């Protein structure tokens, strides 16, 4: 099994090491695990917690249904396709939520809540399936997941769908002979023109982890590194792994209110419990506590210091002004200069450009007002382009990151250039953003996902199959 498996949150690792703040033993390091070598009760302390690990969030105007927005939230990083007998599912006790803020105050105006349940057909076997799975209700499929979707507007909750089926994991030609058919049967159409899918998919993220983990290396820029090596093309270390995606498609009219720009974030929450309540009784489930959130990619990983990560994850974006110093003065900016002494040093303080891109939106593009809140901002009035540019707005493609985020947007290169003050000539001329050269050419050399995305819902590629995952 590959090393990367031990780094639960790949996004995390990406610039993390570069930042020297890769810390995360707490989130990164070796897995969770109970101790074996001593006899007092040692419960796991370090939890990688993949079912609550929101790896990536995407939001874009649907290319084939431009009156709708599609939101993709991915969980469970580094699913090994051949990972049996352990198959992957969402946490049936957790609450997964997609939040939409349509008036720039950092608070939910519309939220979609997903709750999962696991059903075992035959409790006398632990097998995932006892024969080929020909359909979503095939009796050979023993461990199935279903979910409900609830829309929350203010205090008003509407159940949009319940007992919706999730597809099985993609196991192999014997267990899941017609996987594409199973997966498309798991696309659920709800009322009001809403489509939803929740289940295993190919991880659309792409990055050269191997090089970045080696002292922040970027292979195409190897010769400029503090410890130079010959330049080389990048290697996608996420290729071949799956994730679990929640994909929601909603008509724009159900999301916006005045300003066509909406702010989006995803979260995972779990019920809080106590040993005993104040009156000495026990409650099975207390209120939900948000344990992870994700708006803009790599913010938690790169900008938020280790000791604040748990706290940051619990906060509501409306309170993000308390973290503004981490955006204004990113540690990573200084480290780029240390690792690449030949590059011009980007300013490491006073980075109002990052505040604008990540916390308030960019004026004339997707500005939502002065309140800083970490949300993925999407101007729904900008139509999708037929030929998306992986560098999005940096290359003049305003339908891409940081205006929302499409599956193919090259987040690593875009954010690396942003932090290194290499926004490129277009944004420099249009908005006066800094454009140091050659910082505006930086990148890890991995420019696209290994598998093509789908032209229609749910867009994310089919998961890689266990049987042929190493061929």
């Amino acid at each position: 099994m590959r090393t990367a498996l031990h780094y639960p949150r790949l996004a995390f690792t990406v610039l993390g090491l570069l930042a020297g703040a890769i810390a995360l033993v707490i989130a990164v390091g070796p897995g969770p695990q109970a101790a074996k070598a001593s006899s007092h009760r040692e419960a796991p302390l370090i939890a990688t917690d993949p079912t609550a690990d929101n790896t990536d969030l995407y939001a874009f105007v649907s290319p084939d249904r431009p009156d709708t927005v599609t939101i993709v939230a991915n969980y469970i990083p580094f699913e090994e396709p051949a990972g049996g007998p352990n198959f992957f599912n969402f946490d049936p006790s957790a609450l997964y939520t997609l939040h939409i803020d349509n008036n720039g105050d950092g608070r939910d105006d519309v939220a979609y809540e997903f709750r999962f349940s696991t059903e075992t057909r035959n409790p006398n076997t632990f097998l995932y399936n006892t024969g080929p799975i020909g359909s979503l209700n095939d009796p050979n499929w023993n461990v199935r997941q279903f979910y409900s979707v609830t829309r929350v507007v203010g205090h008003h909750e509407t159940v949009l769908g319940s007992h919706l089926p999730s597809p099985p994991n993609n196991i192999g030609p014997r267990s899941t002979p017609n996987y594409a058919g199973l997966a498309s049967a798991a696309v659920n159409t709800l009322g009001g023109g809403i489509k939803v899918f929740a289940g295993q998919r190919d991880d659309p993220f792409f990055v050269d982890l191997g090089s970045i983990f080696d002292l922040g290396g970027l292979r195409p820029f190897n010769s400029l590194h503090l410890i130079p090596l010959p330049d080389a093309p990048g290697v996608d270390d996420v290729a071949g792994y799956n994730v679990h995606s929640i994909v929601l498609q909603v008509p724009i009219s159900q999301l916006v209110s005045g300003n066509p720009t909406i702010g989006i974030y995803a979260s995972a929450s779990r019920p809080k419990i106590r040993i005993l309540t104040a009156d000495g009784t026990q409650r099975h489930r207390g209120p939900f506590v948000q344990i992870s959130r994700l708006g803009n990619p790599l913010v938690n990983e790169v900008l938020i210091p280790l000791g604040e990560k748990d706290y940051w994850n619990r906060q509501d974006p409306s309170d993000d002004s308390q973290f503004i110093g981490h955006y204004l003065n990113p540690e990573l900016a200084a480290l780029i200069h240390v690792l690449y002494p030949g590059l011009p040093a980007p300013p490491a303080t006073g980075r109002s450009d990052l505040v604008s891109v990540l916390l308030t939106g960019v004026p004339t593009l997707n500005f939502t007002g002065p309140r800083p809140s970490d949300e993925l901002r999407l101007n729904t009035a900008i139509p999708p382009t037929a030929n998306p540019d992986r560098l999005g707005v940096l290359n003049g493609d305003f339908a891409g990151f940081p205006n929302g985020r499409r599956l193919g947007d090259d987040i690593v290169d875009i954010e690396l250039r942003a932090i290194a003050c290499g926004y490129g000539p277009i944004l420099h001329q249009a908005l006066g953003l800094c454009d140091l050269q050659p910082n505006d050419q930086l990148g890890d050399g991995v420019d696209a996902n290994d598998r093509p995305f789908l032209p229609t819902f749910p867009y994310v590629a089919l998961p890689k199959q266990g049987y042929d995952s190493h061929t």
Partner: protein
Amino acid sequence: MRRRLLIAGAAAAIAAAALSLGNALRGGSGQAAARSAPAVGIRPDSAEPTVGQLQARLRANPRDAHAYALLGVAYEQRARETGDPTYYTKAGGVLHRAVALAPKDLVATSGLGSLALSRHRFREALSLGRKALRLSPTTALSYGIVGDALVELGRYPAAFRAFDKMAGLKPGLASYSRIAYGRELLGQTAGAIQAMQLAVDAATSEREPAAWARWQLGKLYWSVGRLDAAEHQYRAALAAFPGYVYALDALAQLEAARGQTAKAISLERRAVDDVPLPQFVGLLGDLYRLQGRPALAQRQYALVGVIQRLLVANGVKTDLETALFDIDHGIRLPHALALARRAEADRPSIDGDDVLAWALARNGRCADALGWSRKALRLGTRDALKLFHRGMIEQCLGHRSAARSYLNRALALNPHFSIVWSPVARKALR
């Protein structure tokens, strides 16, 4: 195989005699095995590659405090994976270097805290956990370190506050399992089972954590005699993680309870072969004895002593475990009592109190034992072994009805709580 060799290799560090004993029992040559070790093993979730990466990173920059901290935690993980306590020594070395380079490093501080827990140095763990909380008062993990240490120091109200705080900051496997433990200590088994079920859910999609949570849930069912429910969880653990040693050991106890001694031995041997933890080896000895094979039993008991010495050589305090083992097996009882006293002073938890009570009773000092047994049961924990100890102490003092009451309670909770002592409890009631 890998573990076997690591243990054998590690033994060389303490005594040639120990090494030869280990090898005689396990039939391996430490050196050769150590070299071939990395290739062996089915376990994909191993920190081994992480260790290699971090070592490379440190070769490039020997002053990288954070890499030392991460390496320390990776070594701790290796100790857990292999049962080889020499990793504790390695972990301690690099974690101290990390703290020397960066005194405020949170990972190094909490890494030292969890290392102290693994070594049963609970006062040290408490102070490290508190230091970690000063560095970051909002990080859930540090409350886990503090709470774990307080539990072992017998400071339950404070421990439970720490666990509640942890579960409020970050509900998940780590905090749910601690809530479950708190409820179990208070005798609230049904609530403990509910909390552990949440832990099982939170571990969905993970191998080892899922197996661990299932095993714990099974043990809760076992503690109240629900053997079939326990077995279901143990088998679920093995389905998630084939060969999971804790589930093998737990199933061995279960088969022994059903009178299937041969089956139990074969399960326990698989566990011992993979990770020779002293409690596994001790149970294997007990099973051999039950089967009427005293020579084989003695060999296991001797090995327990070797492993305890290995642990001690790597900084682990084993007084409590050694005292209980020796008392249960009639080994040097006065010495075991001295050990138990030392253990209780160091670790004044209900476990420390109970072992001291039992040590006093087995040395014929039942009047002294009674007070310690009362302390051991002060939380209302539904622990059959502690209730049995109390029953035997009451019997020794001639308190017949109290004795019957405690022995009955022990057997009612779980008629099979111990392959050695359940029959004794039943006999005493006749």
